[in-house]
């Protein structure tokens, strides 16, 4: 099996401060990896660096997707290459309707990949179908992106974007936070529907309850800016019981 995502010795800083200290991570096509770890350990930083946020400076290491150097690419080029980040805190965009936003995104990605644009009718059909599965009303599709959405609605909206854009690599940063029990199930169903042999997923979470629904192939512990432990689904259960105490030292070493 070929590796979809390879992160090697990744060092990333904000300003003077280094947050990721030589992180290694490999995700094969078709795999779902969970990343858990204490607050402030660098999980969101990793997700932002993958997406290409320029506040974070990569000082060393490599990131490749299908062998292609991601660090060379702008955020929009990474998206066209298949990277999707569902944000921990989705952003509100006043005045830009959800539908307009999705259309602009899909059109741009298809154009970048040299694919023909979808007709408006086909596009609408696709969005409506996905929205319906996620319990997103047509009215919400007309509203400005995330403006006035509840926390849970914002998270569902992220999954809608993911479903419509159908990326190669899905990075979900605490998509479960702020979701009620029913919404959690809806979102997990949405994510599971996207599991496929070509697609990889990186699921960042604090809670086992999400991993009960989206069962990972591999679980990593990220602490102090490094992956300090990798195991099977059982590792998440262990963490649930024992916490991160035993890994806090490992990071410093």
């Amino acid at each position: 099996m070929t590796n979809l995502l390879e992160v090697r010795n990744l060092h990333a800083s904000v300003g003077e401060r280094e947050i990721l200290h030589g992180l290694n991570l490999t995700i094969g096509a078709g795999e779902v990896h969970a990343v858990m770890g204490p607050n402030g350990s660098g999980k969101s930083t990793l997700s932002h660096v993958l997406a290409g946020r320029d506040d974070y400076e990569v000082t060393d290491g490599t990131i490749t997707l299908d062998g292609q150097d991601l660090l060379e690419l702008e955020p929009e080029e990474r998206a066209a290459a298949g990277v999707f980040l569902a944000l921990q805190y989705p952003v509100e965009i006043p005045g830009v309707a959800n539908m307009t936003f999705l259309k602009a995104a899909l059109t741009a990605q298809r154009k970048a990949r040299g694919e023909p644009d979808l007709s408006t009718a086909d596009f609408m059909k696709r969005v409506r179908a996905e929205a319906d599965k996620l319990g997103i009303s047509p009215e919400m599709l007309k509203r400005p992106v995330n403006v006035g959405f509840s926390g849970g609605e914002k998270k569902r909206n992220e999954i809608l974007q993911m479903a419509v854009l159908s990326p190669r690599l899905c990075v979900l940063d605490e998509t479960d936070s702020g979701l009620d029990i029913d919404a959690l199930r809806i979102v997990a169903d949405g994510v599971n529907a996207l599991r496929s042999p070509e697609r990889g997923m990186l699921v960042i979470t604090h809670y086992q309850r999400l991993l009960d629904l989206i069962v990972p192939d591999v679980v990593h512990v990220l602490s102090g800016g490094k992956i300090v432990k990798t195991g099977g689904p059982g590792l998440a259960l262990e963490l649930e019981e024992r916490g991160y105490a035993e890994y806090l030292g490992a990071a410093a070493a």
Partner: protein
Amino acid sequence: MNAEMRRRLTAAEEDLASRVAALPEGSDRLGDQRRAAGASVVATGLPSRRVEAYKYTDLRAAFGALAPVAPPADTIAAAAAVAAAWDWDGLAARRIVFVNGRFEPGLSTLAGLDGAVEIASLAERARLPDADLPIGRLAAGNEDPVLALNTAFWQDGVVIRVAAGATVAEPIAILSLVVADAAVAVTTRHVVEVGAGATVRFLEHHAGPAGIAYQASGAIELDIADGARVTWARLQEEGPAALHLSTLVARLGAGSALDRLSVNFGAALSRDQGFVDFAGRDSRVGFEAATHLDGRRHSDATLVMNHAVPDCASKERFRAVVADEARSVVQGKICVAPQAQRTDGRMMTQAILTGDGAEAINKPELEIFADDVQCGHGATSGRLDETALFYMRTRGIPKAVAEALLLEAFLAEAIEGVGDEAIAEALTARLRARLAAIGGEAT
């Protein structure tokens, strides 16, 4: 020696003095009006930054010289320019056309306009003996020098009367074009009287050649009778070297409404000034401005909202996107007379600066002499939201497209504020095209 004689005249001011002296003699009211208005500007000089209302828009410095009055445009060139002019996506089918300051009946399309609308050329009326032109009725007492210059030198214009009680289905468009290959001056004056209870929409459009330093001046006196409802949308897209001066003097009777939108793409220097008087109770004014400036354009929006009577509401929203080294000036003044109780006056100025040398200046003024009022103003100025930009890019939207979408969204909110869906849609499309054209230049 008096102060006036000591003031050094600029070339434009010397020219102005000789043009005022050359105004035709005669004892008619119109001639008197022209001469008095001209003399007032000669006496004070062109407004410089020492004049409070022109602090940020120094016309004395801006007018290198007065351009010669525009000759009539070549017939074929005029027809071609009119045919090529934007038709507001079909909304401007009934169109009054001015080319180089002259009414062009042959290029205008008035057929199909509601019979309740009467339209006549001012220049034609003025030639009739004992012409009783309504010019200056609303503007009486207004000493603004830009308005005075217009009063002194207007070439032509229209009188539009909308009959009481009429509902005019089709918007009435007024297109002012400049067709020239050298600097010229163009001056138009319109008088619009909307009868009691009438409902009507106007589309005002200004355009001219790029690269020519022409000088366009326009003034409109808009009289809105009791219970009438007026929507007035204006699109100013003069050439980047042009100088554009525009004045609106409006009066609202009781129970009436004015929704005014200005979409403004600037000029080398432009000023859009409004003087609005509430003359009857229970009336409402909405003033929306959506400005996009690039290059070194300087644009000034100045508004004086005069609440002279109780129970009226005014709401202004000025939004501007300022790129490159452009500058946007907003001067908004809300005056509330002692008797104008229960006035609701609100003003908001918001700017997004996208250029390193871009500047937004805001000068709000509240002059409130009544005690039972709700008045306020606010202002924001900043850069594009980086977080939103990153978010859009992570979805695959290229930076330039994401920026254009965010800027369009920002300005479209003001455009939609005019409350007319068809007009808002057309103008938003126009804005989108402009943003795309500018974005294309940048990349």
